[in-house]
């Protein structure tokens, strides 16, 4: 790529700020630097992941055993009644709930709302995307830096609305806010409205980020970088951004109508006034189905990077992967109806079933390409690569278990069961979160200039992998055997599987704690990271670790593709680490 001469003047890294805590804080809060905003997003998003994770653990804890209310005779011959298994009952008064079931309902709603709206949608695009999209394009910043900061603030305000709603006791609507339940529940309180407004506001943040990225990709590519010289991460984020721009406004109007429905009963979604509750589901899923691709597409982009860089191999079928990203983005607008199979007309159900299968094709192509990329590579087993491989494993399961959900006959059985829960978590957690963790480890040295302990990170990774599969693989069986989702209580015969699932969630927690520890140790005592620890060829590896204020000392000029490992020696090449190809000119 560009020639980065080492004789340049010493640049300051982006987080070298003015002395003094206050001025440093002010510098961060008022920054328009995409890197700082990316880090700010990362912190906020990880905090939300923590909140969502705590509620997930609470959900699993409640489900450790079924609720048993037993009335029986004690030794003294008196009738006594006792209840076991209501493990969250202690929170009833704290949350102002009516009973332990409502506590559970509120907590799973919080888990869903926080994880979807506040963690997973902004997770990769807004943190890693914000940080690396301009650098990988060779730009100084995103197209609209001030808008970028604004969207962070909007995100924080949205989160504050959500957290405020939680502090008021939380909502029990489910994250999907299905009417008429969501318009009638907790009629005594504003907190449902607050949570809906939180999602509404977060939508604005999402739209602005998406707009910013689309324009950046179109207008700010470095000289020499054509569309097909872009790293695949950029393609993923670009496809994501398109969906964010086009789908989010529809949920905006939906949530707005829902707020008005709640406060003044305008009746659009209210069957008692002639409205149609299934219309709400159409409105909601027109956004919320494309949004699952907002969640997964950047993850797919990251995995493309991880597999190529860590196996030092040109990605197999670059164009196929790039176009399948766009293909998934386009098809994502056609398939929302499969969330409503059990409520819609037969003709529309058949139509949507057929369209839903379309999504599987580009996804399958991607997986095949990733596996083929490994062929004849030089595969390093380190944490980012391991996460890449875990992604392939879990995401394949997630994708393949989607097939019976797209098939109408089997979906009628599996709809709204734990099978769906498991499928969703295998794609979202096994897909996006694994890719996010992989990307975080991959780019951690670049972002913070510190190496992390490989041993610690590997331990965490293995724990996360085991914990994740224990937690969620069992749920496939729960679903097929008859366990509906969103149940605070269940039939005894499901207890074994639920117990395994709950124990798995504890291992998962342990894994993430190990990761957290590794990162903290790395920030405090990590070795200084070289500019290019993995031998990557994309532009972010050509600048310092951490990058300087405007990313590059000179505007980079792109002369080769992002994955030409067999043609080009990576910048900052260390021969010990990276042997030359046998025949660099063979291609």
């Amino acid at each position, binding site marked *: 790529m560009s020639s980065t001469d080492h004789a340049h003047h010493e640049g300051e890294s982006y987080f070298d700020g003015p002395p003094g805590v206050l001025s440093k804080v002010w510098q961060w809060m008022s920054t328009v630097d995409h890197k700082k905003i990316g880090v700010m997003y990362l912190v906020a998003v990880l905090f939300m992941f923590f909140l969502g994770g705590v509620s997930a653990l609470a959900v699993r804890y409640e489900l450790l055993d079924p609720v048993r209310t037993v009335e029986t005779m004690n030794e003294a011959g008196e009738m006594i009644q006792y209840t076991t298994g209501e493990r969250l009952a202690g929170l009833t008064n704290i949350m102002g709930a009516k009973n332990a079931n409502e506590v559970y*309902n509120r907590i799973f709603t919080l888990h869903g709302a926080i994880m979807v709206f506040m963690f997973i949608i902004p997770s990769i695009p807004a943190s890693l995307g914000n940080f690396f999209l301009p650098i990988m394009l060779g730009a100084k910043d995103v197209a609209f830096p001030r808008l970028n900061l604004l969207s962070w603030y909007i995100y924080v305000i949205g989160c504050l609305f959500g957290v405020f709603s939680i502090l008021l006791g939380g909502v*029990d609507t489910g994250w999907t806010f299905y009417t008429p339940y969501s318009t009638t529940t907790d009629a005594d309180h504003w907190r449902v409205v607050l949570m809906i407004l939180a999602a509404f506001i977060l939508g604005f943040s999402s739209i602005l980020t998406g707009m910013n990225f689309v324009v950046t990709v179109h207008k700010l590519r470095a000289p020499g970088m054509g569309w097909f010289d872009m790293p695949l991460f950029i393609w993923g984020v670009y496809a994501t951004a398109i969906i964010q721009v086009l789908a989010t406004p529809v949920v905006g109007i939906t949530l707005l109508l829902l707020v008005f429905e709640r406060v003044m009963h305008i009746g659009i979604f209210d069957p008692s006034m002639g409205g149609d509750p299934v219309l709400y589901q159409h409105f909601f899923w027109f956004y919320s189905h494309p949004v699952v691709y907002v969640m997964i597409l950047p993850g797919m982009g990251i995995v493309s990077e991880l597999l190529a860089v860590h196996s030092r191999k040109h990605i197999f079928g670059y164009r196929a992967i790039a176009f399948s990203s766009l293909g998934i983005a386009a098809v994502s607008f056609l398939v929302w109806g499969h969330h409503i199979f059990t409520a819609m007309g037969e003709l529309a159900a058949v139509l949507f079933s057929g369209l839903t299968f379309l999504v599987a*094709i580009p996804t399958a*192509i991607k997986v095949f390409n990733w596996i083929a990329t490994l062929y004849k590579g030089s*595969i390093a087993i380190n944490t980012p690569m391991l996460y890449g491989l875990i992604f392939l494993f879990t995401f394949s399961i997630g994708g393949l278990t989607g097939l019976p959900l797209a098939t109408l006959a089997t979906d009628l059985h599996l709809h709204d069961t734990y099978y769906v829960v498991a499928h969703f978590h295998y794609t979202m957690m096994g897909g996006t979160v694994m890719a996010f963790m992989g990307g975080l480890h991959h780019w951690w040295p670049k972002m913070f200039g510190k190496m992390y302990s490989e041993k610690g990170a590997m331990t965490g990774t293995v724990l996360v992998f085991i914990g994740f599969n224990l937690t969620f693989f069992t749920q496939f069986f729960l679903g097929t055997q008859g366990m509906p989702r969103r*149940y605070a209580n269940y039939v005894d*015969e499901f207890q074994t599987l639920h117990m395994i699932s709950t124990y798995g969630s504890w291992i998962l927690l342990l894994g993430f704690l190990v990761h957290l520890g590794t990162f903290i140790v790395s920030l405090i005592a990590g070795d200084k990271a070289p500019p290019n620890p993995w031998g990557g060829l994309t532009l972010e590896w050509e600048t310092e670790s951490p990058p300087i204020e405007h990313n590059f000392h000179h505007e980079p000029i792109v002369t080769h593709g992002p994955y030409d490992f067999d043609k080009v020696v990576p910048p900052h090449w260390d021969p010990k680490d990276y042997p030359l190809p046998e025949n660099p000119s063979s291609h």
Partner: protein
Amino acid sequence: MNTPTLASANMPFFQKMIFGDHGASEAAAWSDGLFMMITWFSAFFFVLLMGLMVAFVIIYRRRPGVPAKPSPSHNLNIEILWTVIPSASMLVMFVLGVRGYAMKMVAPDAAMELKVDAWKWAWKVTYPNGASSPETNFLSFESNMAQLEAGSTDPWMETKGLEYPVFYVPEDTAVSLRMNSQDVIHSFWIPEFRTKMDVIPNRYTGYAFHTPKLRDSDSVLDTSSMMQIPGRDMWIFCAEYCGDEHSRMAATLRVVPQETYDAKIKEWGQDKDPVVLGESLYKTMCKICHSVDGTPGTGPTWSSGNGFGFGYEAALANGQSVMRDDNYYRESILDPNAKVVSGFVPSMPAFQGQLSEDEIHGLIMYIQSLSDRNPNASESGEDNQQADDSAGSEG
């Protein structure tokens, strides 16, 4: 205990692990077959891909000083191949899926139509002759293990809130459901028939199933006669999130021989003592929210004490108070939001058009029978007067 079981023998190992039991109808078995087909297809590709991945990782692991060999970065033929194969297989799945969907959705002409009503949080099935099942089952989420833990030897240890209505259907009959909800969206799921459909407030939805022939081993306990009868129990669950007691919105579907079914339906159609009728309605429809022993629930308890119960003044949420008399209960059944008792959220659906006059009368009689101010009670007026005084001083 005759908790419906989802397990049975004589199944292929994986299918048993996945579903626990055979689908109870032909359509269900067919969709199980389709599911297994898709699962084996998925498993094949999953194992293939993961095998390749692991093999590549091992074979091409990084060795110090050994660089990667150049290899092609794309191959059009292979890419076309792995686009066409999934596309073709998905077409097959789609077509088979639609066929199975039709089997589950379209009822034969001669199907028996059952009307299903749903509300927070109970099911009601109305039979063609207008009767509905008053029977409940000691179905519980509580197991023998829990009984043992409690040290009970009493097989009829009653557990709170764990009675569910039993809906009878004849064996080997096509049944079609016409469903409607009274409040929020519910979903009527019978796992053994492998199908569910949302129950929506403003329109009818429905599906069909063909009940299985009973096997020789199928035997259930008839709680009305306390006798083992031939029959097979299946769970009915609510699958669409509907609020606090969502996870307890269950019922039993009991497949019985035609003659048992006929006898039951005939019996339910006959007149009954109002209090007995009221009690059975209570158990099938009201118990999830209203207790009869004074324990707090979603709605006010019906037993007297602490200011509740028939004949006692109710403090309303709007600050007024009203005497709980026949008219009060009648209005509260038909239009629950008219008078909401202080401390409760207005969340009860209206039962206007849902209950016959006899049924409303039966419910009110039953409620009266629970009160120590029961006007129909045989005790002398003095006792009632005393009870009034004590209740008044407590309140």
